[in-house]
């Protein structure tokens, strides 16, 4: 199965008051043809509260960057993952 590197940045954790899991970086095995949104839904179903919170915010306060490019919300169900992909979750930051 393809392996995808998932980075849930500390800034997302701070914004959502979540305790980061491990280093905040993990490798996830995904079935062939799984979409970006599908992966998060599966992690939420398997992993409980942490990913459920992320899933809930993914359409609101979280940006998703796939291999260095922002993925629009409407593209997330269609964005299919492949081996070596890197997914980064960022808060929709403001201010400064």
């Amino acid at each position, binding site marked *: 199965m393809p392996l995808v590197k998932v980075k849930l*940045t500390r*800034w997302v*954790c*701070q*914004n*959502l*008051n979540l305790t980061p899991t491990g280093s905040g970086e993990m490798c996830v095995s995904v079935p062939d043809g799984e979409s970006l949104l599908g992966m998060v839904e599966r992690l939420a179903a398997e992993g409980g509260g942490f990913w459920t919170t992320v899933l809930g915010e993914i*359409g*609101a*306060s979280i*940006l998703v*960057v796939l291999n*260095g*490019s*922002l993925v*629009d*919300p*409407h593209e997330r169900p269609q964005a299919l993952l492949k081996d070596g992909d890197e997914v*980064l979750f*960022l*808060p*929709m*930051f*403001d*201010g*400064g």
Partner: protein
Amino acid sequence: MSTRLFGYMGRILRVDLGTGDIREESLEAEVAEKYLGGTGLGVEYLYREVPPGVEWDDPENRIIMASGPMGGTPVAGSGTFSLVTKGPMTNLGVSTQANGFWGAFLKFAGSDAVVIQGRSPCWVYLHIGDGKAELRDATPLLGKDTWEMEEAIRQDLGATGRLSAFGIGPAGENRVRYAVVAGDQGHICSKNGCGAVMGAKRLKAVAVTRGQQAVAVHDRARLAEKARGLLQEAIRAKGGRLYKWGTGGVFSPYALSGILPVRNYTTSVFPEHASMDAEYMRGRFEHRNKPCWACGLVHTKYMKVTEGPYTGYRGEEPEYECMAAWGPVIGNTDPGAVLMLTDVTDRLGLDVNEAGWIIAWVMECYEKGILTRKDLDGLDMHWGNVEAARTLLEKISRREGIGDLLAEGVKRAAERVGGEAPALGVYVLKGATPRGHDHRASWTELLDTCVSATGTLQSAARVASPDVFGHPPLTNPFSPWEVAAGNAKMEGWFVFIDCLPLCRFIPTNPSLTLDCLDAVTGRGLTVADAFTVGRRVINQLRVFNFRHGLDPALEAPSPRYGSTPTDGPAKGKAIAPYFSWMKSFYFELMGWDPATGKPLPHTLESLGLEKLIPDLAMSCEASRGATLGQRVSGAAVGG
């Protein structure tokens, strides 16, 4: 005002620099009711007293520096004040805020605001003490930077107590178009060249000695409780980011989401971000707290560089926009140099945003051979040359050599150089540059920057967290519809905050903010009332700007500012095809004519601004023949 209102001192100080006359006027109860204070009070006075035809450097222009009902209370960040004037970057009205102590001290000295008019025959500074004010000779202060100025005033007054002085550095004295008014060691009214206006009036500074007068408060016990709660909310907001890391806490996240501006928008990739962000600086450089009035958020620090070529350099911790301007925008990767250039900019009295963009524009022009070493007085302006940048900033502040051209700002300098140069500049066609972001990845702020009447963040739809008002959050930052609608929905809140005025980092909880205001004034404003006050001020300033020649076609990004990123996280996100539609839709939702952007009569009526309707109608006629000195050759993006 016969009966003193809670939250107000009831007095406006009017200073005529031309005659030297200083007198007190009563604060009108109706003005306090409709506009509260701060930006609202300033806009009302600007509108009344600066008619069309008065230019930014005319003695008849006004500078209004105003506190408001919250000023000097125990509410965190209530030392903030608003400065309202007509500024030289756009030759239109502006409201700009600085934090620190000045606003609180003005109240303790017995006034709610200062209205400054005329031009002094010689350089002076204004000192406001407990119940008295005087103009003093500022000749010995000339040439002093903004930090030296504060100390020199203290010595001149023989001051031993608390003093807050806001004034201009060499840049303001020489009327650099983006000169600022700075004080309290690094707090800055930065927008639209308000420092140049002060320079044109030969006014070096306005200093306030903390007086003994108390702000009358409706319910002191309730205020103490609510103010504590509000501060705690501000400290906890967004996971405590601002409390822990200051505004620089967004530096790395911005780099990863394409909002960090890099090399004058020629790229959106900055892999060095983690070795110069706020966590890096606070983790390595020595620092200590630099608080504002009544504020435990303490989002800024004094800092000393402890590594690299600028080891030992001391100054104020760079805030996010300083980090952006003197880091990625000019291609520098040394955080110590960022602190050095931040300190130089603040001391000279220059707006860090315009200054950063103009140095970056020069660097790109130099790289492309549009500007040569000879054009640049022998300076080698390659990307990241921080010492050359320092020299150029000093020349700009003195309008010396090439600095005279660059003192005009990006738009005007680029137009004078001509050829390809204007196409490389990052600016709004109205005349000023944006804040230190790559707004091509932050469309809310790009639209806000272009249409703002205040000259800077006005809607702040992303900053203000629309969800706390029950609005749906922005789900797609690149949706033209969502962005325009979101901005229009949020218009009013931040300008309301500027009318209190409070530091914008404090009121993260609207309910507690209004509880505090109610405890101070006893007026019981609702969230809807707050938005109405803010929208009233936005509309009035917009009508002022139309009367003074605002051309809505210039409420648009320059070609580079509105371009499409060619790399980085927002690669390919193109705002240009949508911009005109977004602007029209936003105008419509604001109750303005979708084509002209002019507030419609029923909109003005609904805000209690009927008196402006005839003025706006007259300005429509006048503007047809007006020349503004702000017309721009070349088409606006999406225009």
